[in-house]
């Protein structure tokens, strides 16, 4: 079976610091895959390598069979990456921002319009899209950015902490659109989070990453059963204690 994402014996060094240690995992097509772990565990580094931003020190990473280093240009055409602390051009309006992003993927004006309409539906910001992004709240900005990531219908969406720093209402909204979109459009997603409840709600399978190593992998229900835990938070605590 061909995987959407294949990560094999991935290592990353920052100078002498060994950030990723022989990380290997696969993501099936159409799956929502979660990377969970504490701050500094290596989640963002892994996502940045898959998103072609960083190069591996060793190991192989493929997205739909394409190497993220030698075929980075091709990979960028089918992925969409949402960084954890992403911002947007605050002097552009929400609409102008979406128009800018859409125009980089499609040439035809009608197609651009179609993508923007899709984004409008996803973010639900309605009239506020005419306002400059600088006037948006954090939650509104995140909704705009999620819409930007999904409107282009990527084959793989890489979302780093999609709801970090958002209030309950915005978090729920963002989670719902991610889940609906993935299932509705058969988009493969890799999500990182340290919100275990979020991961449990969204992900088909999760990998637990700790100090640069994957120490556990499976579906949320499998993991809960294995550790006789009522939720992933308990699983996480038990595994980290064992590690």
């Amino acid at each position, binding site marked *: 079976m061909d995987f959407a994402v294949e990560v094999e014996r991935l290592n990353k060094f*920052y100078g002498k610091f060994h950030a990723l240690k022989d990380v290997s995992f696969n993501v099936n097509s159409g799956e929502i895959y979660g990377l969970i772990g504490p701050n500094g565990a290596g989640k963002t580094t892994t996502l940045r390598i898959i998103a072609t931003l*960083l190069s591996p020190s060793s190991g192989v990473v493929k997205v739909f069979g394409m190497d993220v280093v030698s075929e980075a240009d091709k990979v*960028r055409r089918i*992925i969409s*990456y949402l960084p954890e602390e992403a911002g947007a*051009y605050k*002097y552009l309006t929400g609409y102008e921002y979406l128009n*800018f992003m859409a125009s980089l993927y499609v040439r035809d004006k009608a197609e651009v319009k179609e993508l923007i309409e899709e984004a409008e539906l996803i973010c639900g910001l309605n009239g506020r899209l005419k306002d400059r992004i600088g006037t948006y709240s954090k939650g509104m900005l995140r909704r705009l950015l999620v819409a930007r990531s999904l409107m282009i219908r990527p084959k793989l969406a890489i979302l780093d902490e999609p709801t970090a720093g958002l209030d309950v209402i915005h978090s729920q909204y963002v989670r719902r659109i991610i889940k609906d979109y993935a299932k509705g459009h058969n988009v493969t997603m890799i999500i990182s989070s340290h919100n275990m409840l979020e991961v449990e709600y969204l992900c088909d399978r999760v990998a637990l990453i700790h100090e640069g190593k994957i120490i556990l992998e499976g579906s949320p229900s499998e993991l809960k059963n294995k550790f006789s835990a009522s939720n992933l938070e308990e699983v996480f605590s038990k595994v980290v204690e064992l590690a």
Partner: protein
Amino acid sequence: MHSVLMVILKKEVKEMLRDPKILIGMIIAPVLLMGVMSGVMNFVMSSAKEAVLNPNVIIVDYDNSMLSNVVTSSLTSSSSGRVMVIGNLSVSKAIELALSKDFSTVMIIPRGFGYNVSIGKHAIVELYTVMKSLSISESGASSMPSSIIEFLNSEIVRERIREVAPNIDPEVFLKPISRVEYSVVKGKVINVPPQIVFSVVMSQSVFIPIIIMIIFITAMQFASTSIALEKEYKTLETLLTLPVSRFTILLAKLMSSVMLAVLGSVSFMFAYMYYYTSVTSFGLPTINLSLSDIGLTMTPIGLLLTGLTLFLSMVSSLVLALLIAVFAEDVRSAQTLVGYLYFLMIIPMMVSMFTDVSSLPILLQIPLYLIPYTYTLASPRAALLENYGFLVIGIVYMVVFSIAVLYIASKFFKSEKVLTARISFRRSRR
């Protein structure tokens, strides 16, 4: 590629023009500054001129001779300022009076002044200039009384010569040798002294280095800001994962920087011109000569080569600025880092103002010729003197330099260093 470039370029320009920091800091503030400066200079210059042409003088005439009366009446008639003539007052009292009544100069004509002159002895006139604020205008206040004394001096000498040798032109005694000066420019003899040629060249080419500096500094600020803003707004990571080549991003940033820099420079130039004309409308008489009057004109080839030199130095400085901004975390640190590049401009600028680089010792020439701006600054003069070989060497060097810097810059843009490199050398966030 073409349309993607346009999409990014449009976004860059829109974003920068809407950013008040850029609009105010780089376009509006310099113009306002120049406006205010020219206003202040206008006021200062006109008050200085007023003080020089119309001094307020107290004359204490102890002598009351025919000659002292000539001095007082010439001052009274030529100045429309206040001139007070007093027969008998001590120096200290006269100064006190000047201070309290706001006079700028006290002139003391001692007893025996006229008599001494009439018998061929030295005579003295004392001038006290009140300096309340130690300013330029005060220093000029005594110039009119002094020039009246000078005029009297030469008239007295002429009179004496006429008495001694009535048949000889007194001017021959005063100035037995006169010089007539010519300049040889580009092999042609011109009936103008070299100082005049130099001042014409300077007055007309002084703009060029200044304009170059303004345009380059502005463009470099725009270029580095455009990269730094992506980092500050946390949009760079997203931008680098889009299906756009890094070279296109670099090119769009280069082009938008050039466009905005030209806009900024044009507005600044108008303000500068206004400032320059308002300042030079006072003071020394201007020389009514142009470069073409003294045979210094740029041929179309010279113009083309100079233009090419300027364009290439602009490209190389922008790419340098972009490259340097990669290391900065935010706009402020980017601008600080780019500030260090100004030294590359200032050093050849200072050198080229005072001397010709080729006349320096070889050990100084080498580092100077490695700086592209040396060619930039020397190019207008080389073009005027039809020294095309120099221009061509400069152009070839700058092409090599720009390609090398472009290569390094694009290498950086393609590598992860664009995200991980930091001037503070902090470990990258994982």
